């Protein structure tokens, strides 16, 4: 049986549909991301799962029992979920230990056991020595770890994360992605993760739900989404791509999937001209225009493949790499 089921969930504000006809099933222990541009309805969906917002249509079921429907919702405090907020929402009036212990206190876990669990989780997130610090004395990354510990220590049925890394700097963000996945693998908590950052979603998730304008575009494992995007939107949102029109149909062609060489390839060769280029350290980014065409293509090559502007090159396009999109 699925752990969490969203059945045709919708949230309308007047005539505006923030979320429409959203259906999703999560298996026990699964890690699913909701990915999409800002305003796509992902946070609204998460807040409906948490119980902060009632849906205007559809139902949400946890372990087979309805917890949200348009006629009523079980309030957040009785759902046995945990949530990590964009702002972390670490209470500045409590120490690290008090923050982490709050959920246990509310659940009336005996003091001794609570202390043991707090110590253990702080150990796991590497915050053990900072137990008696106040949040104002912590860095952003440390606050993030406190938020993780506070959410996990109560062993929730569902863990919800709302753009938890968006306030961190780039290096820390990359580190914390792996940290979140590591914690998930250790505790096996069913997790819903909201983000607008595709690489965050790809690193952490078993499956990704790509959302656009309140609707689901595609739900799949990361490699399927990248390799077989179903819609133009998904192809453009997950990684970079070229759109190629053939016979009235649109195909997605990844910049990495195009070969670039000075000599004519054995098959599928197209002659083209380099019209623009950018060096990005890890790779070259070329804009090439096939001769006789008006639209240029983007091609990525290794850092040592250097062509001058205006030079003639050959493109090798494998038809199997072209994915038809809607």
């Amino acid at each position, binding site marked *: 049986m699925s752990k969490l089921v969203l059945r045709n969930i919708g949230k309308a504000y007047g005539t505006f549909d923030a979320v429409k006809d959203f259906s999703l099933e999560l298996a026990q222990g699964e890690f699913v991301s909701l990915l999409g541009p800002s305003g796509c309805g992902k946070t609204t969906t998460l807040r409906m799962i948490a119980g902060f917002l009632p849906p205007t249509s559809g139902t949400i079921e946890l372990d087979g029992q309805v917890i949200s429907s348009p006629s009523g919702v079980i309030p*957040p405090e009785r759902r046995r979920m945990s*949530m990590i907020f964009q702002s972390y929402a670490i*209470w500045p009036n409590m120490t690290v230990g008090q923050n982490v212990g709050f959920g246990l206190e509310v659940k009336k876990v005996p003091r001794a056991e609570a202390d043991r669990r707090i110590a253990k989780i702080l150990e796991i997130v590497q915050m053990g020595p900072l137990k008696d610090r106040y949040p104002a004395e912590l860095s952003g990354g440390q606050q993030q770890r406190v938020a993780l510990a506070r959410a996990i220590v109560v062993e929730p*049925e569902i863990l919800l994360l709302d753009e938890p890394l968006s306030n961190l700097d780039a290096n820390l963000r990359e580190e914390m992605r792996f940290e979140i996945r590591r914690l998930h693998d250790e505790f096996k908590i069913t997790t819903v993760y909201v983000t607008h950052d595709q690489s965050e979603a790809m690193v952490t998730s078993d499956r990704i739900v790509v959302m656009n304008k309140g609707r689901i575009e595609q739900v799949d494992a990361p490699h399927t989404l990248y390799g077989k995007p179903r819609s133009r939107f998904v192809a453009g949102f997950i990684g970079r791509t070229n759109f190629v029109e053939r016979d009235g149909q649109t195909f997605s062609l990844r910049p990495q999937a195009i070969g670039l060489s000075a000599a004519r390839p054995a098959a599928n060769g197209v002659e083209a001209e380099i019209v623009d280029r950018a060096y990005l350290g890890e790779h070259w980014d070329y804009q090439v225009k096939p001769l006789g065409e008006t639209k240029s293509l983007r091609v990525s090559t290794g850092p040592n493949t250097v062509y001058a502007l205006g030079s003639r090159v050959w493109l090798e396009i494998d038809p199997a790499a072209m994915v038809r999109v809607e």
Partner: protein
Amino acid sequence: MAVDALTTTTPPARLRRGFDASWILWIALIAVLLFLVVSPFVHLLITSLRSEKTGAFTFANYAAAYGRERYVQALFNSLELGACAALLGGAFAVPLAWAVSRTDMPGRGLVRTLVLATFITPPYTGAVAWILLAGPNAGWLNKAYVWLTGAEAGPFNIYSFPGLVLVIALYSFPYVFIFTTAALELVSSEMEDAANILGAGTWRTMRRVTLPLALPAILGGLIISFLEAIALFASPAMIAIPARFNVVTTQLFQFFGNPVRVEVAAAYAMPLLAVTIFLVVVQRLITRRKGFVALTGKGGERRPIALGGWRWAMFGYAMLVATMSVFLPYLFLLQAAFAKAWGRGFSLDNISLKNFRFVLFEHATAGTSVIHSFAYGAASATAATIIAIGVAYIVNRKLVRFANGLGFLCVAPFVIPGVVLAIGFYAAYAPPPLALYGTAWLMILAFTTRFLPIGYVNANAAMRSLNPEMEEAVRVLGGSRMLALRKVVAPLLKRSLLGAWLLMFIPATRELSSAIFLYSPQTKVVSVMIFDMSDEGNFEYLAALALVLQVLTLPLLWIGQRAIGRDFMLRRTAT
């Protein structure tokens, strides 16, 4: 699994009950606000349109109120007074504000402190000090002039229209100062740098960039100053009446004399109310206008502008203003308070503590009036804080629909001048069934309403700064809304609410313009006491009592500065 079974057709019972609780709170707050804000206002209107004898609908009160030329003249006097006082106050405040917030003028902290000292000087205390300074013949400035020039009489006469303008401007310029510094502190140095790099010098940059960016705020401050001036009761009563002219507030007071003609007073108060509402709306439109990035965006980095030699000229001007508003007035208030007779000047054999002994221990009511002021102030500040935070919470968390209406009621008293508010309270609650006249309740209720807007603006700002996720984090971990309020919201808002409380309590302890219409011999407050003493010409006692009030305020200021920052009285939310 502990999650209760539910079907989609039956709403969970517990949830519905939680919803009801916030509705009950909402209804309670509505009732309180109807009582405190709407009812006095409605009674004011009704009273002005009803015959005192028959209770029938009539315009006779308006005819009585505007039936004489001198009554109408008083209206125009008020407008002229407000305009002159606001402009003079602007001339004091704007250069000071610019110098303090944007330049390298020496002593900027000192100037700020002196503006604060001016701000916490009640207008009636300032007016009395200036009577000592510039009263005809006996005033110290006149004596000094005679002594220096050998002339027969000095040129200064505080009992005149210009005298009144000066006294009001000197104690209302901090409003313009607060608005202007708040705006200037948001103009980023980069905007000025952009003008400099295109070749504009310091003065041109100020004239073309800085001041225009701050102009809406300056105008807003001038309007508030104007409104303060026309709503002021004490200074005109002390200065205009001896100078034989009336303004709206003094005329209102006369309608309230023996016999009390509250219906005529209500009718007469309408233009004051209309002008105030109109100008507050204008002020909001000016200062809320979007498009000036400087007033909405981030401050960015700010470097002080180097004034060169002008910095001392600027400092001199600041000291001149402070001399008129603080140094001279307090010097001579101290002299009078410690003198056997103030006219005998500064000599050792004229020094005595008898005035303090008299007002604190021997006078029949002066000592209790101080206690009354602080007790009523504390009660009303506490009540207003509770109402304000309750409404701010409901509004910010959108717990019920139409919550914004509650917020509007909380700030609405801002457009009602103190004297008009008092007439409304008198009309609503002096007669039976409540018959509150003569009780402390009437004073406390009126003060609560009068200062509620300050409380609400501060509570609302505090609530807004509190991320709702702080509470959601409690609830998602199993805590109720009440637990979130107790464990998170209350501890985090403690300081801001203490600040809001002080910002209401401090002015409430010195409030005169509403108290003068509502006090009885049993509920006399210190401001009324001081006013009475000035009527009787007891300036030594008066000075002693006024200084006692100022000294008692100092610990409050200290607490406020410790709790929420040095400038807590001089922020825009403070007014």
